[in-house]
């Protein structure tokens, strides 16, 4: 356990994970989750798991944020529609 790279990567992941929970707005959380995915990929690389790092990059950097933001958009669009549709 004398590898500073591992320590740094672990602390990055811990910080990003804590932030991802603390940030309550889903859009901002999606941004933090993208960075968390990246930090995890870095951690996996220093733990000598390039295969896992690669799949984390593939999933975490574009796919998960896209899914989250599309859900947010759908939810917001629907709420907007609702407020518009209500008689004032």
């Amino acid at each position, binding site marked *: *356990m004398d590898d500073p790279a591992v320590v740094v990567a672990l602390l990055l992941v811990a910080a990003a994970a804590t932030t991802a929970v603390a940030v309550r707005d889903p859009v901002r959380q999606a941004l933090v989750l993208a960075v968390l995915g990246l930090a995890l990929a870095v951690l996996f690389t220093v733990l000598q798991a*390039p*295969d896992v*790092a*690669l*799949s984390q*990059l*593939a*999933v975490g950097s*574009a*796919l998960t944020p*896209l*899914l989250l933001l*599309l*859900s947010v*958009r*759908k939810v917001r*669009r*629907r709420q907007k*529609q609702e407020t518009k*549709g209500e008689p004032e």
Partner: protein
Amino acid sequence: MNRRVRLLMVLAGGAGLAALLVAACLDMPGFGGDRHPYGDRAVHESLARRTANTIASVNFDQRAFDTLGEMTILFGAVLGTVVLLRQTRDERRAAPRPEDVAPPVRRYALAVLPVAVLTGLYVIAHGQLSPGGGFQGGVVAATALHLLYLGADYRALERIRPVGLYEVGDALAASAYLVLGLAGVLAGTAFLANTLLPYGTFNTLTSGGTVPLLNAAIGMEVACAVVVLLARFLDQAVEIEEESGT
């Protein structure tokens, strides 16, 4: 239950669980230890079957049955999403309006798209040699197609993405994995046995017996599945609207 009580419960439960897990961590073998019996056997067997990427050997040969389950989870989740996000009776489709995209962004998207798809295919093809494989490459290739939506236009994406075809591809790739497994039973060895094909030369694209074939099936399955999945989400976010008055 109000928020305060819930928070107290979470803190109490979390503290108890934390105590238990920290005590467990102190009993763990130290980080970076040298004892990995299963891992060492897996490396040995992988080299014996001339698969350069040991992780690919574990995934597609030694523990190929896990991968079958994992692929099925993906398959089932995508099928479930298709069912859950179907267009219901009280919804209609509205054609999305075209999007303005700044020219450099558009040019970038169109230029990177083929590069990204090729990279995805490269990652799949070299799965049994270098880091990567069907899962990673499949996701990269499928994500790359959506550059068309991000950098150009939803309708451009729809033109190159007949979802029905991808659904069929998803199912056929899953069947291919199963059929390769069943071939082992028919040949009298065992389900998913990697004994049918020659193991080839170490560190070449065709080495490892059935590993490259299973890897390719997974790559196709994942790519198709992700495309279908995103298609459903995009449908909901972009096209489907509730009818007014509901």
